[in-house]
């Protein structure tokens, strides 16, 4: 088994190195979050400050853990055929379990060890830039927390692997077939019907309009300084829920309601459909940015002004953003591979390069507005509120925004370049359409 794993590693070096690299970065950040948490446990602050500065690194560490599992899950999905061939060859499920443990266990252990050093280096950098506060953390204690997180990560990965093995075992033939259908659950086109006598979903339309209006109203009210903290939290929750519903529900509803009119606009129809598909794939990451980042800053509202807050918040925010961007790029790369046949098919029926570019551009524009701009506006509002309370300095806010914009610009540029490369590759090669010879 070890020699087989060695062969697999050797032939998929690039994939495994990429996985290792991402795990190392996530592990380093996880260590840093836990070190920051440990450092603040030892400091003497009021309970209000403590609750906030403890929660922020814990949220960061939890996000790192979830992203570790998230990435492993997608790597394992690509290994279904490898596992099913092993099952076909007579390997028992138990042995496959050991196979997975060795393969991923090695990577996780290696990344955890390097992550410790990476995390220590990050702490040095924080000390270097925040010289007015020394974060003294206990290495032993931090390693203990880190080890607990490592065990949880490993257990979750094994749980995901187990569920996959069971489903493989039950449906082995399906996974061995070379013509697997895409089993993604797509949005049901429930509102659109060619039957003209079908009832229009008036309730859903009214609800969506209400959500839209109330979300923007809530976002406006957040800026009202006369509101008490309770009402502020109320509006904040509404705005957050509303944002999620707009991204995940309103666009599909618009697509269904205006489907008839969209038939006259092929670029819009295809762009909206592509955006829906894209959102489903990237929804967890988009929502992470739209919900978690503002929540981290929201936690600072009821906290008295202190330089410690800025010391904790800014590095944690930067690390969380970097983690999300890394995972976004990885997931996007996998998503692009799934799109190759669709783009090739659309091109084959007569959509030239210009039309394809327009479809992709429009999809990216909608993503930019809903997935980047609106959450950015939301975050800016919260930051403004926080800066009014004097919790974070204006220079820190500017720095945070620069980091946010720079990282998202990186995402947009990366998306643009990769989609262009993919399109060119797919248009010039007929193998993406059929088996070819």
């Amino acid at each position, binding site marked *: 088994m070890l020699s087989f794993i060695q062969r697999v590693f050797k032939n998929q070096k690039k994939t495994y190195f990429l996985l290792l690299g991402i795990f190392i970065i996530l592990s380093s950040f996880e260590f840093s979050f836990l070190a920051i948490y440990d450092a603040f446990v030892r400091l003497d602050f009021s309970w209000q400050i403590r609750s906030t500065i403890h929660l922020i690194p814990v949220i960061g560490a939890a996000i790192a853990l979830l992203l570790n599992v998230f990435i492993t899950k997608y790597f394992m999905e690509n290994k279904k055929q490898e596992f099913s061939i092993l099952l076909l060859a007579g390997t028992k499920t138990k042995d496959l379990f050991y196979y997975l443990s060795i393969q991923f266990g090695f990577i996780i252990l290696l990344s955890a060890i390097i992550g410790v050093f990476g995390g220590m280096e990050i702490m040095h950098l924080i000390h270097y830039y925040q010289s007015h506060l020394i974060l003294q953390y206990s290495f032993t204690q931090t390693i203990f927390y880190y080890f607990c997180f490592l065990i949880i990560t490993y257990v979750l990965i094994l749980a995901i692997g187990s569920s996959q093995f069971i489903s493989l075992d039950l449906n082995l033939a399906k996974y061995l077939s070379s013509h697997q259908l895409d089993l993604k659950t797509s949005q049901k086109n429930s509102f659109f019907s060619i039957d003209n006598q079908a009832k229009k979903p008036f309730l859903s339309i009214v609800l969506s309009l209400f959500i839209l209006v109330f979300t923007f109203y809530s976002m406006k009210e957040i800026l009202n300084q006369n509101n008490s903290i309770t009402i502020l939290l109320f509006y904040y929750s509404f705005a957050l829920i509303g944002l999620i519903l707009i991204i995940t529900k309103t666009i599909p509803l618009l697509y269904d309601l205006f489907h008839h009119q969209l038939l006259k606009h092929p670029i819009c129809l295809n762009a909206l459909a592509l955006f829906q598909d894209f959102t489903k794939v990237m929804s967890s990451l988009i929502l992470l940015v739209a919900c978690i980042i503002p929540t981290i800053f929201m936690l600072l509202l009821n906290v008295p002004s202190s330089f410690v807050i800025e010391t904790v918040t800014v590095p944690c925010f930067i690390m969380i953003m970097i983690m999300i961007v890394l995972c976004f790029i990885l997931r996007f790369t996998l998503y692009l591979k799934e799109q190759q046949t669709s783009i090739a*098919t659309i091109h084959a029926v007569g959509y*030239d390069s210009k039309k394809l570019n327009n479809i992709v551009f429009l999809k990216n524009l909608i993503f930019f507005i809903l997935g980047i701009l609106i959450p950015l506006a939301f975050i800016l509002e919260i930051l403004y509120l926080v800066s009014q309370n004097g919790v974070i300095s204006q220079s820190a806010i500017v720095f945070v925004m620069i980091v946010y914009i720079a990282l998202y610009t990186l995402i947009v540029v990366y998306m643009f370049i990769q989609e262009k490369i993919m399109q060119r590759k797919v248009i010039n090669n007929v193998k993406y359409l059929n088996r070819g010879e």
Partner: protein
Amino acid sequence: MSNILIEANNINKVYDPDLYLKRGKNFYALNNVTFTLEEADFTCIMGPSGSGKSTLLNCLSTLDRISSGELRFMENDVSAMSKDQLCEFRYQYLGFVFQNHNLIPYLSLFDNIATPAILAKEDPKKLEERIKQLANDLEITDLLNKFPHECSGGECQRAAIAHALINDPKILFCDEPTGNLDSKNSHKVLNILSKLNQQGTTILLVTHDAMIASYAKKMMYLYDGGIQSVVYKKQDSQLDFYKKINAITMQDSLLKELSTKKSETEVIQETPVEPQPIQPSSKRVSVYMIIDGQPYDKDIAKNNTLFHIDGTKVSFINQYNDPVGFDLSTISQINLDLTAQFVNFGLFSQYIFYPKVDFVSEEGTYLFKAKNKDDFIQIINLFHQLQIPVNDPRQIEEAYHKYPRDYERSKLYLRTHKDLTQYKG
């Protein structure tokens, strides 16, 4: 007279960039294929794995480019079209059905069918009616709101057929449309295709299944990138046509199992038993002229239609794969001319010159382009021996005498026949 939709003359598809440098062994996925598709044809392409079936379909449907040869679509030269022009062309005239249906997973069946049609920006109500009508004919009306993963293979394939037909294409290209279907659904799909063909749609279908092929009107059997046999259904029943097809496919596999390997000379020297008289045509046919019994270039012969000269009798295989010929004694005059072909290969781009030979007779003029190189002088000598007057305004014969080698002659032509090499952009 039937309309010719596709005309392919000596098309090759090579998967080796060193075609002209001859550094490596070239892999001919398509090897000198000459093919004609007429309106309302239902042609099936069969062959073993790796014979070039899908490659031929991809080249004929403009999804892939040929390496050499001539490919004309309703009189339009496909090789001269840009990518965007090809896109427009496919949108207007062609429909595709693939083995994996290739429906877009994030669009409903309705939207998938509408995708090609919405480019025309027609009235949505009319489009909806057309889609409904198609869905009705294909028995998928209840599935229009569903997504591909919610439908069975047969339902998806029928949706794919609707997607291919929505723009009323002139030609429907099907690459193993029943490859992923059970027999019941396969027959359903083929019945639909047969019905479409009866209504006038031209269909070109690739399959490895003789039963599926029996639904067509003509079967072309490919082997190693070339057309080995052509079988016509004519007035036969489907069962008799199926038996004919089976005989061809079985014969091929049995021969390969039982007989020793044939020499290249034997393969190449297969001449038609009884060539039919050729009709004069305005189309120039590319051939490699060989005199039976005399040495010739085997590499050129392998990649071109052979023009056999046996005494005064001439014979070759035409674009319909029928053996045809004529008698040189009926020829009153031979006109020689020259044509230049630009071969684009980066730093090694060059012009290649071929002689054009027009045989003038009382019935008309037979037009040929000779792919011969140094050995063409033997052909000219034969014409002189047979005392056929040769009109040679470009002094091609003199060039052959003065410069027996092709490379030197090409340099001479480049200097002296600049009119042939002027850019016709």
